[in-house]
């Protein structure tokens, strides 16, 4: 389809290319957008030179390092970029377009999980998608800007090779740089809570032996708000569950705690 048109500047946006992802999904992409992925552009140009172009059959460009979910996002971002063959607008139109793009970008980032960002950056780098890389790199920089050292280590999977006393000395010396940053735990909690969860009703499980015995002190009977529900509404195994404690002093005061 696309390799029949030898036109280097596709004025007709109907020219399309097919990209195949690592999970064998096929994507039909407008040539103008696909050309922003310089790796694809290079492949296409190499194809043009060879005899394959003369064949006139559709070429599917394989992208073994890119997953379909990631490519979807990169393509939709690529579509929103100003096209290289667009007519220059006056200041007003430019401003409105800029605002629209900013809104779109913010929307895109809102629904993004930080882990996905790393995938996007890897893929954009592989595809040599300069505008995308710039945008996602900036987004990642903004994301980690106020985070703690622990968060960054965990996020990038970096092993801490500092000795504890070295690290402490550094933190003391540059205490001002460690002020006012988001605590690692809070960051994790926020991320955890941002994920949507659904509860599915598994149904009634029969034939479990031995049957669970509810502790004598747990409440039984009807739910005060809805008598169709019997208490306990939710149970978990275990009695005398303790909170976490430090190794130095156990909860029982004994030498060993099992």
């Amino acid at each position, binding site marked *: 389809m696309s390799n029949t048109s030898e036109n280097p500047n596709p004025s007709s946006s109907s020219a399309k290319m097919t990209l195949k992802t690592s999970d064998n999904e096929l994507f039909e992409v407008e040539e103008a957008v696909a050309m922003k992925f310089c790796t694809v552009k290079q492949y296409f140009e190499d194809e043009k030179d060879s005899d394959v172009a003369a064949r006139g059959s559709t070429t599917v460009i394989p992208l073994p390092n890119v997953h379909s979910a990631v490519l979807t996002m990169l393509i939709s971002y690529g579509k929103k970029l100003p096209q290289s063959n667009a007519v220059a607008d006056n200041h007003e139109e430019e401003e409105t377009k800029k605002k629209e793009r900013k809104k779109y970008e*913010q929307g895109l980032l809102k629904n993004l*999980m930080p882990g996905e960002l790393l995938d996007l*950056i890897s893929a954009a780098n592989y595809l040599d998608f300069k505008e995308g890389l710039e945008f996602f790199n900036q987004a990642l920089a*903004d994301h980690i800007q106020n985070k703690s*050292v622990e968060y960054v280590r965990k996020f990038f999977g970096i092993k801490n090779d500092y000795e504890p006393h070295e690290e402490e000395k*550094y933190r003391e010396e*540059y205490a001002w*740089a460690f002020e006012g940053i988001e605590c690692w735990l809070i960051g994790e909690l926020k991320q955890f809570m941002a994920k949507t969860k659904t509860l599915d009703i598994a149904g009634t499980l029969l034939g479990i032996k031995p049957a669970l015995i509810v502790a004598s002190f747990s409440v039984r009977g009807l739910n005060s708000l809805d008598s169709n529900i019997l208490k306990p509404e939710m149970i978990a195994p275990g009695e005398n569950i303790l909170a976490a404690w430090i190794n130095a002093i156990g909860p029982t005061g004994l030498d060993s705690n099992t």
Partner: protein
Amino acid sequence: MEAPTPTPTPTPELPEDIIPDILKRLPVKSLVRFRCVSKSWHSLITSSSFIHTHLHFKKSRSLILLARYCETLLSIGPQQQHQPDFNITTTAVDGFQKAVEVDSFDLVRNLPYYVKGHCDGLICVVINDGVDGALVLWNPSIRQYKRLPLPRNFHSTREVFGLGFDSTIGDYKVVRAPSSYCQMKIKDYHPQVEVLTLGSNTWRKIPDEDTPPFCIEHFFQATNANGALYWLVAANDDPFHCEILRFDLAKEKFKVVPSPPDTFHRNVSWLGTLEGSLCAIHTQRLSYVDVWTSKDDETWTKLITIPRMPGPEASVRHSDYVPLCFTSSGAVVIGIKLEGFVTYHPIENKVSKLAVQNVEHWLQETVCAESLVSPYAADEPAAARQHQMRSAHTASRSLWQLILGLKHGVANYFSCSSGDPRQ
């Protein structure tokens, strides 16, 4: 098609060259903190190539520093409002709303000082400590300073200095120029020009024939642009006429640069930099302000004209307008001494007041970049680390010594006198 589910892959290995590209976008505070992440990140962030990339990254942040008389330095910086996750919303003027004190070392508290010049995030400050005075190279973003050795016959705050980067040798130079105050008031004052290269850490006089026949007012800051230092000087034949004096850092020669043309023959009232280019303004009381810029000292192009704004909002102090920097929306932040700040947007032709907390008055304004450049850049890494720690921990002791007026020799102990002389 249903919405794509996020890929449950383990953290992918990012290619090596992506990490610097991400880190160069971060502010200095974050980078100093992230030096602690791992040893490889530490060597990356302290490498001179990364510091250079970070400094010259196009979106790098400018700090407005306000020097006050006998009070600490104030910094107005682009403190981004942090929002959870990805919702970074920058406020209307990039966070230029609050001034914070910058002086963890009590370097200048209660002491008269002047900022004489700045370059790449380093500022050159002269402090009058009541004894011999001090000449300090300071990077307020990373909170490091280094005392420089004093030249002979040092008259502290009445001296004229400039700071710039000489790309031919890859090092910073501090230049001492003739001061008009000293010329008038000090007996036996010989105007001479001396240069200190950070690597050599010694003062070196330039040949007498290269010394310019001008003297500079001590309260003028040197402007560093186009590989040279610039000052405004009074013309010898007509004291009411200003000229622009240029000192080439590489060649170490002086030259007078033609001022931008003006139909009303107004004087250049201010010289500085905007976005890295040399910038001069023409203005007069109650008149409009023309801002010119030049990249090569020969041709001047008019950058903006700030018109006279009618009405009670208008400031009559047009002669004190100092353009500072651009905001992300394209407006220019202007400081007006004794009044405050305004922003002017050239395309929308709008002047709006910019309220900055904690600022009442100031003596000098300096716009410098936020950078990781260390004043110890020329020193051996080990010695530099030692001095860093000394700077941090002996700060309060330093001040105490200043107040007690200990001898110059003892003050020298805390100044950096090591560092191999450059070949």
